[in-house]
């Protein structure tokens, strides 16, 4: 019988108990505390985030039912000016305008469909290109706006949403704008003598471009399949209707050479030759269509309006409208219209310009401006622009010559 310890068959190996070192406890307790604090912070941030969003949604509803004066400041003052003085030689004044006279029907109809043709106001003649608000303002908003206009510059008299609804119903077949003062005289002779409407230069009946837009080239993809039958765009696909013809032609050229990179537009643009690019540009420039853009990026509309109307001097961002024209209708030949543009496209384009810099000849200044906008700013301004009425159709023949 050996006394060797290994011979002990009954011995069960075990780990001796050693106390856990204190520093391990310290770390564990500190981490647990940190976790608890973080969870608590997050949950308050979460609930405050939800509360803030609900408040913003409420704000939006309130803004939607904003008083006529607010609507005027946001949608009309860029052209007609805050005091209704208009712009000499360009935008008719509202002060003392006969169009705000007795019959509210006239004002409602002008707001619903816009004007495209010469008009005489207060003894001066104007070219007359006013956008149609029918697709961006609802009946209630138009009623409040007209009430405000009549109270400020007309002869009073309230207009209600039912009246606007009836007016909208009465002219629902109408898709074009009113042909200047000559057309409006027939609605209400009280506006006084109006210049004759020289038959609108026929929307270029470029059947080649039309066929391209509707059917694509050689059975290829049609423009209309993504950009819509009336060039109104959708979500990330830009609105084309009312963009300057030269801008569209230049963009197609940039897509085909690859200076403006796009997997979708690249193969399409490479199929087109010079005259086809120009033809498509003219086709979309003269297209008037209702706005299909709606704010969809959760942008702060008030901030967007500030950026568009005044810019942000702290970040050295000039206002959008200082180059894209009052109300964002663009300036032919190369500054594109931005009003009623699809917000996802606007925000994405701003981000791309800010990130990649100059990608086509036209946008010389935009990269440095876009680079100074934050993500929230881009969404804000894109959403704000989506609330504006679309640019009236550009009559390329006369406007490009200016």
């Amino acid at each position, binding site marked *: 019988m050996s006394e060797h310890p290994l011979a002990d068959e009954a011995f069960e190996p075990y780990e001796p108990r050693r106390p856990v070192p204190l520093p391990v406890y310290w770390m564990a307790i500190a981490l647990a505390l940190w976790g608890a604090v973080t969870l608590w912070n997050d949950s308050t941030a979460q609930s405050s985030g939800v509360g803030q969003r609900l408040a913003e949604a409420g704000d939006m509803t309130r803004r939607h039912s904003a008083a006529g004066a607010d609507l005027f400041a946001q949608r009309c003052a860029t052209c007609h000016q805050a005091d209704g003085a208009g712009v000499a030689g*360009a935008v008719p004044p509202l002060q003392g305008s006969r169009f705000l006279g007795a019959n509210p029907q006239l004002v409602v109809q002008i707001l619903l469909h816009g004007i495209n043709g010469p008009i005489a106001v207060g003894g001066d003649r104007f070219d007359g290109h006013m956008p149609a608000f029918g697709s961006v303002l609802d009946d209630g908003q138009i009623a409040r706006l007209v009430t405000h206009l009549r109270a400020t510059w007309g002869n009073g008299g309230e207009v209600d949403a039912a009246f606007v609804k009836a007016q909208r119903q009465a002219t629902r077949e109408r898709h074009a704008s009113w042909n200047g003062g000559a057309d409006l005289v027939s609605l209400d002779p009280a506006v006084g003598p109006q210049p004759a409407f020289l038959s609108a230069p026929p929307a270029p009946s470029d059947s080649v471009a039309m066929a391209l837009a509707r059917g694509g080239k050689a059975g290829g993809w049609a423009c209309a399949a993504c950009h819509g039958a009336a060039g109104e765009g959708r979500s990330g696909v830009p609105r084309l209707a009312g963009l300057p013809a030269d801008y569209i032609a230049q963009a197609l050229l940039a897509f085909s050479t690859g200076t403006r990179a796009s997997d979708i537009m690249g193969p399409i643009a490479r199929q087109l030759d010079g005259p086809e690019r120009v033809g498509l540009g003219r086709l979309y420039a003269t297209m008037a269509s209702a706005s299909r853009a709606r704010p969809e990026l959760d942008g702060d509309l008030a901030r967007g309006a500030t950026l568009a109307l005044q810019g942000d001097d702290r970040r050295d961002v000039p206002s959008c409208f200082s180059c894209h024209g009052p109300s964002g209708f663009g300036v032919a030949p190369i500054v594109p219209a931005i009003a009623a543009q699809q917000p996802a496209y606007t925000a994405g384009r701003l981000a791309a310009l800010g990130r990649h810099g100059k990608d086509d000849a036209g946008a010389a200044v935009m990269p440095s401006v876009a680079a100074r906008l934050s993500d929230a700013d881009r969404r804000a301004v894109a959403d704000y622009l989506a609330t504006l009425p679309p640019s009236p159709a550009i009559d390329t023949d006369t406007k490009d010559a200016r």
Partner: protein
Amino acid sequence: MTDPGHTATETESPRDQRKGRGLPRSIYALGGGLLLFALVMLVRDDILLRSGPSTPAPQDNGAIAFTPPPMSSIPNGPAGASIRHGMAIFENTATEARAFVGNGLACRSCHLDAGRKADSAPMWAAWVSYPQYRAKNKKMNSMEDRLNGCFSYSMNGQDSPSGGPPPKGDPIYTDLEAYFHWLASNAPTGAKLKGAGFPKLKLSSLGYDRDRGRAVYAQHCASCHGDDGQGRRDLNGRQVFPPLWGANSYNWGAGMAQINNAAGFIKANMPLGAGNSLTDQQAWDAAAWIDSQERPKDPRQKGSVQDNAAAFHEGEKTFYGKTIDNHLLGTGTSPKPRL
């Protein structure tokens, strides 16, 4: 069988040793944990605080930075109405002061951002530096005198419906001054404000050259102001980009017709949204190209261009009175037919 020494040290003693020590030990553990947590939080906050916004750098040569009040703080009531009307005149000059504007410009064409932007002759800085002696007319100038000069030269009042600037005491002056006064709210009077006037650029040994300027202009300016310098209008015919020369621009008596002023403005502000992106040399050359084009005549001219150049343009950096391409600059343009 079992080893008595082995069991004695390993199986029995730990339990025995820990007996009665659980409480102090857990207190040590908890206390140490809390201490560590507090320490880490302090260190973190300290780092966060230090990386926060740094204090603004001290101002150079004693100039004071100033920010005008936001538009939303214009008061209501009659004073506010006057300020608002002043701002409307500033932005929409050809409409609000229709009788006195003889070209396609507005005050804000050169005083960007409605006269708020530093380095584009902001009105808050102008307000606190008047009345002032000016060599241009060799007298003490009140703000109204200065504005009268703006309407005469920059706004080319000679071709306006009334044929000149607003008469003395016109409410246009009052409202513009009300707007400037409000813009300069809380600005120190007589002190040097940062961003006043246009920046002064040093001229290098290359000087300025209109042919080099033509290339700069074609590359950086023409897309907005047009190859012909006539700016651009929107579809309603409203001037969006201002005309830089010709009958619809400022006349030969304007400060902007001097190359040094135009160069400073261009350097700091052009292309719009990308200020300070051109080199000093490019700014000088572009200014030389723009200011060597014909524009409305100097309204002070009595006799010949040469006489007037000697009387009013001596020592200026200007092309006035020089002959370029067989054309004597300063002859003037015929006024545009009125809209």
